[in-house]
């Protein structure tokens, strides 16, 4: 049970891996080469509303949860949603500004893990501080970031 988090992490990997393909196919299926990406994003938002907002509300009601939300939790989680959507919108704008998908996405997938690791470790330092961060962990993040960049940049058909 010690590695349960890893199972959830890989479940998430699967759904996010699927997300890109679905969004890309959805965008093409909109049959609008100029605005297809915005049309697709509109429906992503609607699905998010249905799944995350209404789905969570149903789960909270079914579980008999108290409808009290600490202000801090409310602000952080709304901010997380805003940041997630602004990021998704940033990619659409980058594509619209003539950035090619392989280059844009390779920048994103090489940069995001590094930003995340630095900010996360700064905010939640491990027991023993920065010195407790082992070099294979840092090397692992760098290798994964470089690998993600190569996979995206040199994907067949790119």
């Amino acid at each position, binding site marked *: 049970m010690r590695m*349960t*988090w890893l199972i*959830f*992490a890989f479940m998430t990997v*699967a*759904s*996010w*891996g*699927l997300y890109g*393909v*679905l969004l890309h196919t*959805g965008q093409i299926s909109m049959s*609008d080469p100029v*605005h297809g990406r*915005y*049309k*697709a994003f*509109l429906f*992503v938002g609607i*699905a*998010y*509303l249905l799944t*995350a*907002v209404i789905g*969570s509300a149903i789960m*909270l009601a079914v*579980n008999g*949860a108290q409808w009290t*939300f*600490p202000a*801090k*939790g409310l602000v952080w*989680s709304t901010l*997380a*949603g805003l940041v*997630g*959507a*602004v*990021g998704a*919108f*940033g990619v659409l704008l*980058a594509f619209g500004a003539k950035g090619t998908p392989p280059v844009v996405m390779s*920048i*994103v997938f090489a940069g995001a893990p*590094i*930003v*995340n690791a630095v*900010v*996360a470790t700064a905010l*939640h330092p491990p*027991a023993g501080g920065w010195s407790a*961060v082992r070099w*294979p*962990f840092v090397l*692992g993040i760098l*290798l994964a970031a470089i*690998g*993600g960049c*190569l996979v995206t940049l*040199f994907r067949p058909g790119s």
Partner: protein
Amino acid sequence: MRRRRLLIFRRPWLLFSLIKVGALGIYGILLHASRIAMADPTQARYKTLFFAGVGYSLVAIVGSVLILRFKGIQWRFPIKGMVLATLAGVASATTALGILLAFEAQGTPAVVMTILFTGAQLINAVLSLAIDTPQAGGLRWQFLVGFQLVILGICMVAIYRPIM
């Protein structure tokens, strides 16, 4: 510094890409912080997902509608495009739930998000290959090396993760 700023202004796509880098880089950290701030050991995941959904939907729906209206496009949406984009949204929301579940099971943002960012690229690449199979010899060596680097990197991150 001056030259770098100019490069970004000359290539707006680079600026937008970096916005995405920053946003994605702190997304998991914000989810983790809000889950803790909800101070509810059993329902925090749904409370967090609820407000993350509110924030995401606001930007995605209102932002898209504004851009589409501003550009004066026709409000016609092919069924296939609608269905696939909606499924993409469901996959994205499922991702947020998965991240929260991984945090609840003692995964830390630095580890979980690194696995997510890089692992999702592998799934994405494999699915793309399955949909659009390349000809024999069509796989470039850089792609194959990248694939192995991601797997190696993920293993190292999971094994050598800092003890909190």
